[in-house]
């Protein structure tokens, strides 16, 4: 056990898996000597050499496209894209190729690759460095989408993502790369993909969230406990495939749901979850399902970004609304 930040846990997972798997390759921009712009790959080029930790040209589609060819050939590529806002350059590679390769060849070729990228706001970065557009990828059949919310979660989920036989988009919450530290086991452990985590049990309302938003959600839940409301907090961890059973079970028990995400509201995953709960848990519902989300605008530049993202206060308001409904 050591007390690690989320970025250190990512580094430890990559280091661990690189040691285990000679067929694993890291590729991306500035991931070598520089150790990645957030230092996720710090020290890895020294340890594993330039053939395995590859500084690529500035070429997002080239990185993901080459990773597809590598994966089909039998390597296990883990690509880093510097920010989620730059992943769009590789959109065609992900949507038209990585996601479809296994299905279109009926399993003749597979595409076991991981694309890691920091997502989300709160780090006062320039334009297009605060994107939270996970819905693009959740909407694409054939991709898995994983978002860790704490250092220990990050390690166990990343190890599972690397070992997964299919393409995984691994979104790392940039806001909490260094904000929290927790005990992370030194040895390997796997957190299965597709399983949500019930972070806190409660009987009055289900709070459904993931990634960086888990933390203001937990804060809101704690405030509500003081007011006598027992909130159940669910960290989705894997956004695709969605752990529908855990969501339905929780809402069947609590009868109320608030979904919190920093992505824009329209066609965000929150809408999908609300539809799912209406279809499969309608008779348990005692209040409308509420969403606390970003607005349907581009993420503002740092001076105004705090007005965009959900915070504890907005989450508390939503909980009070559904509880008092």
């Amino acid at each position: 056990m050591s007390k690690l930040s989320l970025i250190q846990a990512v580094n430890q997972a990559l280091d661990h898996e690189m040691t285990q798997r000679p067929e694993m390759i890291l590729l991306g921009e500035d991931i070598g000597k520089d150790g990645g712009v957030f230092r996720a790959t710090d020290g890895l080029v020294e340890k594993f050499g330039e053939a395995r930790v590859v500084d690529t040209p500035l070429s997002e589609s080239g990185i993901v496209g080459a990773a597809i060819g590598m994966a089909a050939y039998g390597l296990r590529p883990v690509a880093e894209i510097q920010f989620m806002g730059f992943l769009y350059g590789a959109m065609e590679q992900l949507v038209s190729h990585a996601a479809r390769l296994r299905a279109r060849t009926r399993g003749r070729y597979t595409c076991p690759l991981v694309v890691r990228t920091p997502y989300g706001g709160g780090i006062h970065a320039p334009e297009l460095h605060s994107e939270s557009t996970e819905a693009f990828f959740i909407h694409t059949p054939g991709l898995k989408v994983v978002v860790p919310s704490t250092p220990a979660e990050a390690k166990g989920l990343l190890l599972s993502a690397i070992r997964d036989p299919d393409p995984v988009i691994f979104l790392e919450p940039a806001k909490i790369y260094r904000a929290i530290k927790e005990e992370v086991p030194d040895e390997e452990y796997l957190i299965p993909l597709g399983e949500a985590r019930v972070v806190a049990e409660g009987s009055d309302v289900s709070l459904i969230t993931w990634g960086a938003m888990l933390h203001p959600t937990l804060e809101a839940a704690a405030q509500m406990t003081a007011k006598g409301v027992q909130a159940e907090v669910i960290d989705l961890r894997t956004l695709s495939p969605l752990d529908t059973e855990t969501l339905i079970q929780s809402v069947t028990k609590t009868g109320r749901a608030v979904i919190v995400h920093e992505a824009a509201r329209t066609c965000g995953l929150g809408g999908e979850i609300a539809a799912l709960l209406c279809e499969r848990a309608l008779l348990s519902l005692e209040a409308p399902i509420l969403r606390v989300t970003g607005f349907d605008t581009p993420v503002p530049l740092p001076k105004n970004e705090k007005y965009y993202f959900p915070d504890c206060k907005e989450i508390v308001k939503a909980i009070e609304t559904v509880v008092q409904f």
Partner: protein
Amino acid sequence: MSRKTLKNFSVSWLQVLNEAGEIDTTLCSETQQFTEKTLKSFYESMVLIRAIDEKALNLQRTGRMGTYASIRGQEAIQVGAAAALRPSDWFFPAFRATGLSVLRGTSIKTIYQYWSGDERGSVVPEDINDFPVSIPVGTHIPHAVGAAWAAKYKKDPIAILTTFGDGATSKGDFHEGMNFAGIFKLPVVFVCQNNQWAISVPVSRQTASATIAQKAIAYGFEGIQVDGNDVLGVYIAVKEALEKARRGDGPTLIECLTYRLSDHTTADDASRYRTAEEVAFWQKKDPMLRLKTHIEQHFAWTKADESALREEVDHRIAEAVKAFENTEALSPLEMFDTLFESLSPELLRQRAVLEKRLNEST
């Protein structure tokens, strides 16, 4: 201070078999002299892949197949490249490489299945290192590069070949792939089938470069323009490039200058945008004519030989069509079964929905 020329570049051209059917043997190395057997086998392959193409068009016209992209006029590239490749090499095609895929070992039936709208047409046999076609233009180029990278990393003594058209050279993925290949000196051969038309847009609207071959120079490796209607020139250029790649000396771009004698696909009408004169001009340069002329003049290829070959080819294709048309229908449930290694509960639920619907409708 100064103002001076830093670099001068040149682009070479190769043609070994001219339109009159004459071979310039000085362009063939001692080990690359073409025997009667080789030349006849090249011709037989050309006849085969043209007949497969013609049958596909016929199947489409008679409503037995979907939209199809003809390879007519581009047979020399596909026969030459296929002959130069080894089975252990890998091949990443765009969608106008049906002949090359068949010559690599994909069955004619599989090709017809693909163009008839059956996913089993993208299932390349286990023992053939080929990818299925890429429908998005040029986006498969980085895959070839990635596979070449993996082969180099594993120290496998192989090369990767990818084909694409002149239109693909306008795409970003062409640039990104070529750039990676040059920087990491990867064992990959880029074969551009410059057929001068990307649907209705001529190559002059794809690039202001005098050749496509010269684009390689900017990525730090060799490019060569070959007469794409000359099977021997293509064979030599591709073979040299593959050997260079396998030796660890990096990538090559081979621009094969040819002409798309057909419409873009069966859904296109090329008479809307190009003249009959232009097509007639290129029909005279048909890659099959010059090779036939050569074997007639040098190896007493007779009308009887020709009809025996055609009969054999027709028989082979008829068998393939029969197999294609007698194939059991693809289960609709298959759309789920290989999406992931294991299906999520939600996908299993949706699969059950379709299964129920199918049971209700029977």
